[in-house]
């Protein structure tokens, strides 16, 4: 009997939740704000869906409704990716140790 590919994806999903659980508990509380901004940036990987939706239209008309939604999602995700990673970088650059100051 074949296993439905859905089960494989579900396995990846469940195991990732566990990885997330342990990894996030090890994040130091002082970095919780950068944690939020970086998770926000990486969740914008939804842009891969947006790119496929924007470019892969079969009709040949690049302004098909489905494509337009892809384009819109691309812009939104792009704002998030650049904004999220850069603002995280800016914050992390501020965390300094005592001895670094001198």
């Amino acid at each position, binding site marked *: 009997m074949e296993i439905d590919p*859905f089960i494989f*994806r579900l396995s990846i*999903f469940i195991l*990732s939740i566990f*990885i997330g*659980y342990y*990894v*996030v508990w090890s*994040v*130091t509380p*002082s*970095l*919780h*704000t*950068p*944690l939020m*901004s*970086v*998770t926000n*940036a*990486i*969740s*914008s*990987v*939804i*842009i*891969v*869906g*947006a790119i496929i*939706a924007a*470019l*892969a*239209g079969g009709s040949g008309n*690049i302004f098909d409704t*489905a494509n337009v*939604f*892809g*384009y819109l*999602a*691309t*812009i*939104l*995700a*792009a*704002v*998030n*990716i*650049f*904004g*999220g*990673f*850069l*603002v*995280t970088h*800016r*914050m*992390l650059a501020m965390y*300094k140790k*005592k001895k*670094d100051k001198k």
Partner: protein
Amino acid sequence: MISANLLAVFYLVSGVLFILALRGLSSPETSRQGNLFGIIGMSIAIGVTIISVGNFSTGFLILLVLLLIGGSIGSFIAFKIPMTAMPELVAGFHSLVGLAAVFVAISAFLNPEVFNLGNPGDIKIASLIEMSLGAAIGAITFTGSIIAFLKLRGIMSGSPITFFGQHYLNLFLGLSLLGLIFYLCKTQVDTWFWIIITISFLVGILLIIPIGGADMPVVISMLNSYSGWAAAGIGFTLENTALIITGALVGSSGAILSYIMCKGMNRSFFNVILGGWGATDQISSSSSSKEQRPVKNGNADDAAFLMKNASSVIIVPGYGMAVAQAQHALREMVDVLKKNGVKVSYAIHPVAGRMPGHMNVLLAEANVPYDEVFELEEINNDFANCDVAYVIGANDVTNPIAKSDPQSPIYGMPVLDVEKSKSVLFVKRSLSPGYAGIDNDLFYRDNTLMLFADAKKMTEEIVKSL
């Protein structure tokens, strides 16, 4: 072109890089490297997707231009935003992820062949469930984050908005969403899909309006979690491992942060979500006859004298410090104290501020070394040996009543034991109660000196008289 298997391997690599990005945040030293891993993972995911679609026509040029526009807007915001505005920025960004998820789901619904999900009107049932869940959670994240953004920005009042039957309405809408998804799968009629999205937009608004300003740390973490689940839902639809892994990571990250925030307030998650804390408790506590007790009132010179002659000082910052933008003045004050040989450390309560880690970022911005900043459990025993506790913009998180009075709404909430230090300097604009609507017993203690002023002005004055 690129084979489906190779593509899947690349997505797996980006997924692993995202895990490493979060792992890096376990300490400030490794965090910058972690962020770099995240950027590499994202670049790989975007690059291989464009190559795999292999469409380099006009549409591709439009896509590049849009990426550039979005990227410039994002970069501009990231460079310009002041650190005090971080909570509303994060809320704003969450709304974008939510809306992007909705748009991708709509696109997949309108044009399912592109994603190998079947044909319009005959989409695979599993895919329909996944995309409608992704769209619904995305829509809730979108409107919910917009409301959170408006409240944090001060455009909308931070006080809870409640009305009769609110929770039943939410319950009804939530159940009807499930029913609609069932009907959508049965009939494949697109009207249901649009209704699902519309109701979800409404649910997002209704969920967040009853939640008050000081509960925002929970709300932001929760919306963070939702944006992850929305991404995972879309990941299942598109059969994309990078999205599934990332969605699960972000979803559990947000959930853990919500849990930590709830624990910091000793409240259950449902208690926060059902909202209206400040609204109900204010009445019962204002009747208790504590208002007329005497307080000791001091000025900047008194404070300067006390701190200069102390051997150790602990600073307790709160949201008021963020509002007054007092972090730089505070750092100056500490610098002077340190020159006088005073040992200074900072104590951060888990729910200080409007988002997890809010105070830490502000102190880091003011060049406070992170190894002088401590969490509640690390520093709470030190108050007993400390000469002066300088409370700036915090209130409820220092209230000793949480330890002594079972009747109090904040009973059981972990608090900083500031009253154990030899003297307490409490910078506050007035004697008004904090967000929880309860009087702070600390104001009337013999070892407390109230400094009635704006946090920034008072700190600057202390610097002068030092």
